[in-house]
């Protein structure tokens, strides 16, 4: 059964990908959606058995690499952490598959799209069920590949191609760190199997190793390297630049990959490695700071963006920052909890945005929307649910998960924890603000699109609305239902051995400490969310002149935010231009004039010159030929007389 969960999507991908022509569009959709649906149902059953029943298990498929002491198996590891991820991945993926049937109804290559989606799901499941780091890396690269293919799905668009390449390259930077991390793990533990690593982690703590010429704490350096990998995949500050551009892909892709699943792989990786990370406090502090900065930074940018999908993308980036600082302070269950709720409401937001875009014919700029709420009331409602969850309004999913993270940050009573807490509070205001800004700009006010488009705006078909409803249910109830198990009193029984949280001073673990924070800390995020909503209402409904005036008043800041803190420009100048120049040098001087000059081209031109001479000898005169023969004979004889025996 567990094997089926993972491999059904692959089967669907193969059938749709290679036989799409034979089975047709409808066939491909049925096959992939069917496979995903079965996989999701099995995923739910597995969750009940493994997580709720408390029976972690490992399915060993076959030996993969066996070289000396280096043993790698293909194995599916199902513990609570995996089960949570599996249910999130399969359910969201199923919703997106079904949604895509409607969303991509006008596209020419539906089987290809469905195959890519299923392939992605397979890779993602491979990632979360990995039993060792190498298999995890396989899935990691697999989702990277699928992400590349899906961002560049509309390959005739130059921007889509550029975005897909950017995503791939930036991820490669992170992957480089991740690969180094795996090497480091193997060096330290002589194994890449999770069980072996986790068992040996306490013993290894405190060892040092040489890296870049200095002595470092071994676990710290390895953990940071792994975290660099996580940063790349999860778009954390510094390696985040690909995520907004990735919105060039079709909207279902954004929902599945760039909101709900793939980008959370980094979070999953850190949580998975918690038994090791716990012994590397310095690394965790780094994680906290990066996460906190990302949460705030991305939120500030989200305030100024005008593309509906980019706003949500920066929101995703920001929420991932929350998860990371939660991980950093040691509250892994809180992070995973938020991962799950976030998956639901962010997928909901994205798919609703897709529904809006679908309704008004591929218009993504919010400045060209407005007043749509009467036209597409259901989508409007879905958007509200998603936004309420995102802003952390009580009893919606986001409220529970976001609060527990902020409480954990505060409750850690450390410098970085407090820093993360205040950053998170600031980001919460901004989150609420841009969410409602989005709602108001899109659905309220006067329509800013042309009359024709407005008249033809229409509600999406049921095949798209169905998944939205499912996700909305998740966005409303998942927090309330899951709170007790994930982070409440039942957490120890729920997580079992899959996550390790060392006791802090006073003998409490971080979640217990989080529950014991002052009441104002618990209330503050909610209050901040209300403030953000209030400001947004003031600025975009009551006094529509405020945003423009503010932008004019603090123009440098506005531009700074609009241009996304100039990250792209800085990277372009610092890395792209430099490596371009370096490449030019190598190309012009190294390859063209040296290697080619003396190698293939040189030999080729020499051969050509010699060939000219050779045929020039062929004069056509018989006596020349006769002379050549005689000269040949006498030369051979002379040579023999002079040199021969």
């Amino acid at each position, binding site marked *: 059964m567990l094997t089926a969960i993972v491999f059904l999507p692959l089967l669907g991908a193969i059938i749709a990908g290679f036989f799409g022509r034979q089975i047709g569009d409808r066939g491909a959709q049925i096959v992939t959606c069917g496979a995903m649906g079965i996989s999701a149902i099995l995923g739910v059953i597995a969750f009940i058995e493994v997580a709720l029943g408390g029976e972690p298990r490992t399915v060993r498929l076959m030996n993969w690499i066996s070289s000396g002491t280096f043993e790698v198996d293909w194995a599916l590891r199902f513990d609570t952490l995996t089960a949570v991820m599996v249910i999130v991945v399969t359910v969201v993926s199923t919703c997106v598959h079904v949604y895509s049937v409607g969303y991509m109804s006008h596209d020419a290559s539906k089987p290809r799209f469905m195959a890519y989606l299923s392939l992605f799901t397979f890779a993602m499941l491979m990632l979360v069920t990995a039993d060792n780091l190498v298999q995890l890396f396989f899935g990691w690269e697999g989702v990277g590949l699928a992400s590349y293919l899906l961002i560049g799905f509309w390959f005739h668009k130059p921007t889509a191609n550029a975005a897909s390449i950017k995503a791939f390259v930036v991820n490669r930077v992170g992957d480089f760190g991740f690969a180094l991390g795996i090497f480091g793990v193997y060096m330290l533990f002589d194994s890449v199997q999770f069980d072996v690593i986790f068992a040996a982690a306490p013993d290894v703590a405190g060892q040092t190793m040489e890296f870049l010429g200095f002595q470092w704490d071994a676990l710290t350096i390895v953990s940071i390297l792994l975290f660099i990998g996580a940063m790349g995949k999860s778009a954390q500050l510094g390696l985040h630049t690909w995520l907004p551009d990735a919105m060039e892909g079709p909207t279902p892709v954004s929902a599945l990959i760039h909101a709900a699943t793939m980008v959370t792989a980094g979070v999953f990786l850190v949580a998975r490695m918690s038994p090791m990370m716990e012994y590397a406090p310095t690394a965790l502090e780094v994680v906290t700071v990066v996460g906190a900065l990302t949460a705030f930074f991305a939120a500030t940018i989200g305030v100024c963006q005008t593309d509906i999908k980019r706003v949500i993308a920066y929101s995703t980036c920001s929420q991932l920052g929350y998860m990371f600082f939660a991980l950093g302070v040691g509250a892994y269950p809180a992070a995973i909890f938020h991962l799950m709720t976030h998956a639901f409401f962010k997928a909901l937001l994205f798919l609703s945005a897709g529904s809006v875009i679908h309704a008004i014919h591929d218009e993504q700029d919010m400045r060209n929307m407005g007043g749509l709420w009467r036209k597409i009331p259901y989508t409007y409602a879905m958007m509200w649910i998603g936004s309420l969850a995102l802003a952390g309004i009580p009893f919606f999913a986001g409220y529970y998960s976001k609060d527990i993270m902020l409480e954990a940050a505060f409750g850690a009573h450390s410098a970085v924890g407090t820093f993360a807490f205040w950053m998170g509070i600031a980001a919460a205001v901004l989150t609420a603000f841009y969410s409602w800004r989005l709602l108001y700009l899109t659905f309220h006010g006067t329509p800013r699109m042309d009359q024709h488009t407005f008249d033809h705006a229409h509600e999406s078909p049921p095949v798209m609305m169905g998944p939205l409803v499912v996700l909305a249910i998740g966005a409303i109830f998942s927090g309330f239902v899951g709170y007790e198990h994930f982070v409440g009193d039942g957490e120890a029984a729920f997580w079992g051995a899959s996550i390790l949280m060392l006791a802090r001073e006073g003998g409490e673990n971080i979640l217990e400490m989080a529950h014991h924070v002052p009441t104002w800390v618990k209330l503050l995020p909610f209050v901040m969310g209300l403030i953000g909503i209030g400001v947004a209402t003031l600025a975009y409904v009551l006094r529509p002149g405020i945003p423009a005036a503010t932008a004019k008043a603090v123009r440098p800041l506005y531009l700074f935010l609009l241009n996304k803190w100039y990250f792209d420009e800085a990277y372009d100048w610092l890395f792209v231009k430099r490596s371009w120049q370096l490449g030019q040098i190598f190309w012009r001087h190294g390859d063209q004039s040296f290697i080619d000059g003396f190698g293939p081209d040189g030999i080729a031109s020499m051969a050509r010159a010699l060939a000219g001479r050779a045929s020039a000898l062929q004069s056509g005169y018989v006596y020349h030929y006769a*002379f050549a023969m005689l000269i040949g004979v*006498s030369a051979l004889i002379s040579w023999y007389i002079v040199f021969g025996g």
Partner: protein
Amino acid sequence: MIQALAFYLFAAVTVASGVMVISSRNPVHSVLFLILAFFNAAALFVLLGAEFLAMILIVVYVGAVAVLFLFVVMMLDINFVELRQGFARYLPIGAAIGLVLLAEIFLAVGAWTVIPVTADSSITPIPPMNEVTNTHALGALIYTHYVYLFQTAGLILLVAMIGAIVLTLRSRSDVKRQSVDEQNARRPEDVVEVVKVGRGGGV
């Protein structure tokens, strides 16, 4: 003594006429010198006791080949001066190659060492002259031992003949040829027409 004197005389004339063959300006003279060379060579054969070869040489080469040459030279209008153009140009390189080859052959002849095994085999083939006549010995050699080569030579000549015909024989339509059959088959009634010519009119 006399034999030696005769040898040197004939040999000298042979070489001298050989030089004249290639150096004389008039091609007819060349052929005549060639005939002289053949005669002297025949004389040398006689000195060696090979009277059959000597006679064959005169009959075949002088009687047939050289006379054919003479006809060819006289019938074809070959401008030998024109042929010699470029001779001077290629003389140096030609001479150089010739000299090198000559020097090498001298080297080889100078270092002549007959392989011991060879010494025996090279003496035996010539049977004593009083036992076997020249003609008999050649006959045995050519038609028995070397019958294979003899037949091959025949085939070569056949091919040469085919080649000559293929490359040169052509039926020309612009030349009138005699056809005996046609002549014999002619009848007066076919070709003679009797016409009564009217008075005052033409045919």
